[in-house]
C-alpha cells in the first residue's frame, strides 16, 4: 500500500509516515460509521450540544500542541495556527448555542391538520478536506454536520495526516461515540471510490486540482451537497 507522508515544508524533513488504508480497510470504517450514525441520530440535541462544549474545551486545553502540529505539518506561522485552533473552539461554542434553534421544526399552515418542516440528518457525510486550514476546514463542516445528527468519514488532504488523526482523537476524547467521526487515510483516487459508496449520503468538499479531476470522473449520483472553496467547481449533481 502507498504511504501518506507528513513533512515539514520548511526543511523537507519527514515527520511521520502512515500506511494508507486498503479498500477493504476503509470499507469497514465506512460501514462502522454508518452503524454508529443509526444510534447517534436518536440522541437528543441537549446531549449533542453538551459534547460540543466538551470538544471546545478539548481544543482550548490543547491549543498550543495542536497549533504546533498544524504549523509544523503545513507551514503556517505558529501564532496563526494557534489562532486557528481557538477559532475552531469558537465554532463549537456557536453551534452549541444556536443549533437547537436552527434545527427546530418549523410549523407551517397548510390544508393538513398539522404540517411542518423538519431538519433531519442525512446519514454518513464524506468530508474531503484541504490542507490549508487543517483543523478549521474540518471543524466548520463537520461540527454542524454532526450536530444535525450525521456521522462523518473524513478524507483529509494527503499532506496533513497527523492533523486528521489528532482531530479524530479529539472527538473521542470529548465523548463523542467512537466511530462517529472516522478518518480514512487514502490518496485521492481512494476518495473517488469512497464517494461512490452507496452509504455516503452527502459530501463536503474543498480541494484543489486533484480532487477536481476525480469529481469530474465520478459524478457521485448519491451525493447532494458540496461546499465552496478554492477553485472548487462541483460536477453536475441531481436536484
Amino acid at each position, binding site marked *: 500500500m502507498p504511504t501518506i507522508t507528513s513533512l515539514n515544508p*520548511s526543511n523537507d524533513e519527514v515527520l511521520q509516515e502512515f500506511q494508507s488504508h486498503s479498500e477493504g480497510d476503509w470499507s469497514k470504517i465506512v460501514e462502522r460509521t454508518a452503524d454508529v450514525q443509526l444510534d447517534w441520530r436518536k440522541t437528543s440535541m441537549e446531549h449533542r450540544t453538551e459534547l460540543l462544549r466538551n470538544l471546545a474545551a478539548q481544543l482550548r486545553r490543547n491549543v498550543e500542541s495542536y497549533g504546533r502540529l498544524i504549523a*509544523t505539518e503545513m507551514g503556517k506561522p505558529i501564532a496563526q495556527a494557534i489562532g486557528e485552533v481557538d477559532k475552531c473552539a469558537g465554532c463549537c461554542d456557536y453551534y452549541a448555542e444556536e443549533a437547537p434553534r436552527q434545527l427546530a421544526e418549523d410549523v407551517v399552515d397548510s390544508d393538513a391538520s398539522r404540517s411542518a418542516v423538519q431538519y433531519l440528518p442525512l446519514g454518513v457525510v464524506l468530508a474531503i478536506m484541504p490542507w490549508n486550514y487543517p483543523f478549521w476546514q474540518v471543524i466548520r463542516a463537520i461540527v454542524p454536520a454532526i450536530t444535525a445528527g450525521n456521522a462523518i468519514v473524513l478524507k483529509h488532504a494527503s499532506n496533513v495526516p497527523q492533523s486528521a488523526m489528532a482531530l479524530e482523537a479529539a472527538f473521542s476524547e470529548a465523548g463523542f461515540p467512537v466511530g462517529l467521526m472516522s478518518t480514512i487515510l487514502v490518496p485521492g483516487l481512494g476518495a473517488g471510490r469512497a464517494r461512490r459508496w452507496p452509504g455516503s449520503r452527502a459530501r463536503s468538499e474543498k480541494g484543489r486540482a486533484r480532487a477536481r479531476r476525480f469529481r469530474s470522473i465520478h459524478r457521485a449520483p448519491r451525493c447532494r451537497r458540496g461546499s465552496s472553496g*478554492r477553485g472548487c467547481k462541483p460536477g453536475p449533481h441531481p436536484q
Partner: protein
Amino acid sequence: MAASQARTLNNGQSCIAAKRFLVATEVHDEFLAAFSAAMSALSVGDQLDPTTELGPLARRDLRDELHDQVSRTLFAGGRLVVGGGRPEGPGAFYPPTILAGVQPGMTAFDEELFGPVAAVTSGGTAAELVKLANRSPYGLGASIWTADTERAERLAQDLDSGMVFVNGIVKSDSRLPFGGVKASGYGRELGAQGIREFVNVRTLWVRRP
C-alpha cells in the same frame, strides 16, 4: 497594512485571500508604494519562530506552480515590483511578491495564485473596477476599501461574489454564511445556512381522522 495581510495570511494559501487588487488611478501610485513597503518588510522564515510572518508554502510542487504563474504573467507583460525569485535551498519558500500592470488575459488576473503573490491592476472609475472584478470565473469574496461606505454598499450590489466586505479583509465567521458563486462552489458553510446544508429538509403533512 491590510493589503499585505489580506494577501499573505496563511502564507497566502487561503481561498479568501486577496489576490487581485483593483485600484483607482488617482490612488494607484501611492497604494503601490505603501503596499511594496509592507510586503518587503514581512519576515520570512521558520514557521515555528514566533517572529515569522510568512512561512513556507505547504509543498514544493505548489511553490513551483506559483512560480510558473508569476513567470507567465511577466512574460505577458506584467511588471515585477517586489520579490519574484524562486529561492535555492531546502523548503518550499516563496518571497512576498507584487506584480503590477496586470491585465485580463494575464495568468495572475485569470487564475488563482495560491501563495504570497499580489496582482495589481490600475483602473478608472469605480464602475469600471467592478466590471474588471467580475471578469473572473470565480466569485467567492471581495472587499471594497473607501471612505464612502454608502457608495461601497451600492457597488457591492454589482459584484458577483458570495461575500463582500467593506473596509475589512474577507474572513470566515461562524455566525455568518460563507460561500461563493460561479466557479467558487455552491452551498454555504457556517451560520444557520451552513448547518442546513447537512440536513434532509423533511416536509411532514398529517391529517387527523
